[in-house]
């Protein structure tokens, strides 16, 4: 696909998602918004996975984003959702810029463990920070949307869903273009062989740092969106099990398609809400069995399924 086609496809997808919104039942809009927020975060993980790095602590930025937006609302009296989500993204970005230089020197299991340790550090600190609500966290007020909700009767959940759609589609589209660019392809080279990439005249450290910061920004926005949908922030956002879910979404999706990430995220949320409704005492177990099944029987993730269909179309003589 050329860049123009990608942008056109993205615009069409966004229009379809927004048009679909009003027809969805309330629970589906809510679930969609949460799934998109998590998908945006997992998108960042895929950016890092392309250079062979797995973060087991992306919850750190998800949490920082959520608290950034939440505190701006509670202390700064800002209620505009767009401003809050951007503020969440920027908080994630700043945190990424601060710890990125340290992490850029780590690889493999050391990268995974250090990201995990840092996110647990933030979790522990937040649990004890009484001014930030301690382990109970803080309740947020409903956000506003430039006054639109008063003039048009826009439902707040739909408005957040729409905002999540815009951010998700825009970031997926930009990253899809980036992945094909020289700097984007460089990440694959880093995964393959760092020393060769260095000899080609680029800095591996810088490439990893850039990916890390992009992922932090995305997770920050994801965390802010999640905070606005749920109306609540707490330290659990930085707990290692939250990060584990993002890893699962990224692996379930595979690294071949950006659309697959959101499909995977929606699938995970559906399985979770379905199982917590029908097996309230065994929803984690259902989630675990679902994960195992996917890992065992779909080794290349959902993205590979989408890719395979496209491949068979080419084989049949259709345009890719």
């Amino acid at each position: 696909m050329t860049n123009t086609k990608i942008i056109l496809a993205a615009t069409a997808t966004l229009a379809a998602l927004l048009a679909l919104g009003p027809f969805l039942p309330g629970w589906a809009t809510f679930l969609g918004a949460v799934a998109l927020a998590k998908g945006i975060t997992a998108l960042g993980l895929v950016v890092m996975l392309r250079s062979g790095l797995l973060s087991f602590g992306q919850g750190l930025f998800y949490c920082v984003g959520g608290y950034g937006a939440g505190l701006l609302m509670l202390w700064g009296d800002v209620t505009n959702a767009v401003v809050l989500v951007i503020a969440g993204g920027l908080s994630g970005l700043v945190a990424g810029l601060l710890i990125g230089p340290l992490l850029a020197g780590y690889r493999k299991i050391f990268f995974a463990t250090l990201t995990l340790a840092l996110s647990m550090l933030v979790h522990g600190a937040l649990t004890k920070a009484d001014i930030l609500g301690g382990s109970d966290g803080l309740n947020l007020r409903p956000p506003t949307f430039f006054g639109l909700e008063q003039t048009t009767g826009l439902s707040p959940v739909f408005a957040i869903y729409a905002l999540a759609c815009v951010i998700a589609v825009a970031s997926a589209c930009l990253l899809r273009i980036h992945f094909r660019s020289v700097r984007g392809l460089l990440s694959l080279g880093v995964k393959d062989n760092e020393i060769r990439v260095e000899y080609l005249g680029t800095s591996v450290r810088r490439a990893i740092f850039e990916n890390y910061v992009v992922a932090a920004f995305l997770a920050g926005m994801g965390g802010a969106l999640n905070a606005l949908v749920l109306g609540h922030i707490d330290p659990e956002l930085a707990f290692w099990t939250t990060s584990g879910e993002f890893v699962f979404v990224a692996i379930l999706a595979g690294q071949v398609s950006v659309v697959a990430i959101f499909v995977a995220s929606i699938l995970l949320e559906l399985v979770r809400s379905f199982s917590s409704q029908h097996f309230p005492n065994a929803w984690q177990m259902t989630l675990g069995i679902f994960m195992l099944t996917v890992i065992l029987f779909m080794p290349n993730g959902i993205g590979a399924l989408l890719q395979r269909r496209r491949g068979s179309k080419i084989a049949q003589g259709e345009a890719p």
Partner: protein
Amino acid sequence: MQLVTTILLDGLIDASWIFIVAVGLTLIFGVLNVLNLAHGNFYAIGAYVAATVAGWYYASGDNPPAFGLVLMLGSSMLVAGILGPLLERGLLRFLYERDEVILVLVTYALFLILEDATKLIWGVNPYYAYDPYSLFGDLKVYGLTYVGYDLMLIVFAIFAGIILWLGLNRTKSGKLVLAVIHDRDMSSALGINVTRIFVIAFTIGVFLAAIGGAITAPKISVQPGLAVTVVLLSFAVVVIGGLGSIEGAAIAALVVGLSRSLAIHLWPSAELFIVYLVMALMLAIKPQGMFGAVQLRKI
């Protein structure tokens, strides 16, 4: 002086059971190259089974109290004997060819499954197995009264560490395990039955986690949520000590135990995150841990 003694002893007691659990994690990582996120669940299951066994044994009245403790420790063998081969042969072996990230995720899925499975089997109400706690009486140290059982834990951990070290370094099967840790393909080429070593190492790893649960069961209330904290503690120990290193795990367990007791006595609000702080600092200064091997970069 009293404060120093308290901090030291509390730290040692903490370090002893953490060491036993963590050394199992490091063994599994060393041999199978699997970072086992379900390790805390093996600890929790060990604690639940031991508490249940203790419940049955002590309920029946005038049995000799010391034998109850032996039964509790023996129950961990049962846990490991069932769970170890079942999970290694039934699940993990299909995935060794895959990326190590996938294996972490598989153990994460196992963590979720076992977490609910324990709740379904034992319910959400706490279990108590305090009867053996008074077996060794009380001891006076510098004017402080300590429960003998706690001090016995230290002895037990030292004993376990020595047995494990001797087993690995002074026996033939131990040396085979070390060979597999060092180079899996080469060992296989030399005729070592790597599959068997995998099952045995994983089972011993599960056993160490389960016995860690069994020996702490009399000290704590056995209830949901144990796994999630224990796995991170042992994880921290393994990272600080160096992945796959037993000597490292011993020293790191001391570091973790002492820093926790330092925090509890001097800076209580830091108790939750002091371990991660130490872990992050260690990774920042020496990423491969105290005793970890430096990895070569491929060209």
